[in-house]
């Protein structure tokens, strides 16, 4: 029925049709609802089931466990703090009333801007924002005012993405840019050390315990791993993040090089910090608290903003992990360094690629010279 309807109104959006100026809006809805029937008809092309739409959907699927647990955890933290005994569904429902509006705001604002730009520039709306829009509520504390979220999303989409030419051309991860905007614009609302747990009550996150040196106040490793701690919506449960990581790695969408090297960088820096006596927390406590793992799995691996070359990915990831821990341990102003570390390395990713490609070319040239000498 829907297909018939789309087919019936399609001519109106094609060239010469009545609503041609809304062409890309129609295109977007049609390809969102159905697999596009356009296929490349001439020339050679790689056959692969993985187009951009599917890539994005897989990432969203990988995020779903984090999202569901995050929603539940918001309710759980609330009821635990207030001291009310609450069942699973009660917790989940309370979380929904907090998290769903954030998701809706992020999608509505972001997609509206994407559609307007696509319309004005006459290109098609693509699926890039499906992931960013899902990530934004996951990396914000659940009490962030919705209008701030809307402003931050608009800033991230316009300045972070559309200015550079839309999906695939951006230098920085749009979701992280939205968080960075919130972080610098409204530092009292979102700073990574104290977060809302219930109305008018805010509790310190594990990170602020680490920053303050109160290691004994840290929850035990098991609680950190399963995620019954206060924090941003999606970052608390390391189990769900690992589940997402498995999906990304299994489908080959997330880069294992970036994940492994980021982890290595973080472990190394946490180890050095521990040796130097600058931080009291153990390596595991560092890795399991805050947004380190979430950033590692879902943000650092963003195929657009990370380095593209194999060696480049290793260098990029290693530096992300190193910087994140460096900022966390040595800069008292920022209890969490993952956001800034990823944004910083996003900026340097093209340079890393440039150097890696350059070195490779130099090596091959040398080999060529040697070979021609022998001959």
């Amino acid at each position, binding site marked *: 029925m829907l297909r018939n309807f789309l087919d019936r109104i399609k001519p109106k959006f094609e060239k010469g049709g009545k609503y041609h100026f809304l062409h890309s809006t129609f295109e977007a809805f049609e390809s969102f609802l159905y697999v596009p029937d356009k296929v490349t008809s001439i020339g050679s092309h790689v056959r692969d089931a993985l187009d951009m739409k599917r890539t994005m959907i897989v990432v969203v699927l990988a995020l779903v466990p984090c999202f569901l647990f995050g929603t539940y955890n918001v309710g759980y933290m609330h009821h635990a703090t207030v001291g009310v005994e609450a069942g699973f569904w009660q917790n989940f429902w309370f979380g929904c009333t907090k998290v769903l509006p954030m998701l809706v705001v992020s999608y509505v604002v972001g997609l509206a801007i994407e559609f307007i730009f696509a319309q004005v520039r006459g290109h098609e709306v693509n699926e890039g924002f499906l992931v960013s829009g899902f990530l934004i509520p996951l990396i914000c504390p659940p009490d962030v005012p919705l209008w701030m979220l809307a402003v931050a999303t608009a800033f991230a989409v316009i*300045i972070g993405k559309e200015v550079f030419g839309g999906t695939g051309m951006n230098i920085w991860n749009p979701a992280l840019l939205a968080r960075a905007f919130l972080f610098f614009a409204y530092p009292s609302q979102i700073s990574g050390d104290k977060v809302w747990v219930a109305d008018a009550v805010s509790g310190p996150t594990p990170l602020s315990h680490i920053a303050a040196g109160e290691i004994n106040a840290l929850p035990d490793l098991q609680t950190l791993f399963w995620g019954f701690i206060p924090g941003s919506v999606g970052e608390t449960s390391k189990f769900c993040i690992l589940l997402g990581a498995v999906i990304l790695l299994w489908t080959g969408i997330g880069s294992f090089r970036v994940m492994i090297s980021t982890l290595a960088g973080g472990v190394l820096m946490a180890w050095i910090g521990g040796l130097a006596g600058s931080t009291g927390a153990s390596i595991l406590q560092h890795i399991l608290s805050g947004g380190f793992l979430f950033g590692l799995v879902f943000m650092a691996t963003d195929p657009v903003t990370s380095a593209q070359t194999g060696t480049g990915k290793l260098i990029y990831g290693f530096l992300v992990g190193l910087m994140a821990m460096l900022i966390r341990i040595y800069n008292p102003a920022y209890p969490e360094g993952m956001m800034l570390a990823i944004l910083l390395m996003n900026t340097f990713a093209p340079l890393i690629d440039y150097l890696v490609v350059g070195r490779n070319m130099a090596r091959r040239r040398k080999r060529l010279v040697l070979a021609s000498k022998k001959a």
Partner: protein
Amino acid sequence: MSQEKTKTAEASVPFWKEMFSAKNMKLLSRPFGSENPVTVQVLGICSALAVTAKLQPALVMALSVTVVTAFSNLIISLMRNSIPPRIRIIVQLTVIATLVILVDQVLKAVAFEVSKQLSVFVGLIITNCIVMGRLEAFAMANKPWPSFLDGIGNGIGYGIILVIVAIVRELLGSGTLLGHQIIPSCFYEAGYSNNGLFILPPMALILVGIIIWIQRSRNRNLIEK
């Protein structure tokens, strides 16, 4: 016959009419838009970042730069035929430095508070690329009056951008304009809060970028290849 008439008419044009001829007026107004020193030539960005967190220092800065560009253009243009080309930069710098010290002293005497806020940035007008750029590009090759107008025009062109950026930054960053509360307190009670990012220098850069974006999408000739 008719030619003679125009000739006499030209000769009898009063000097002030010639001074404000269309050509000269263009010198004055071009830097406002299509030849803006900040958004088109991308000069003077550093001070645009530093002094635009509040409107008042931005206004004073704009005025100071206008005075310095106008008078240094005038003085250098008067001397242009007697400056040996090899040492022209030193001569230009001497003139600019003298004017900047004058402006600085006047500010300290008249508006001490603002002068304290601007701190080193008044002194740094010496290194403002717009001043030096106009001397090299215009005053060294043109008569004093057009040079003076060119200086005023570029100073104002710089000032316009400064003031726009400062208005946005002060309004959204502090909720005030010239120190007066603009955003009503009922907004704050409804949950609004000032945007701290607008106080930080990066936002000035982003705002200048947005102005450049808007200007170039309206005037496509300015887009670089």
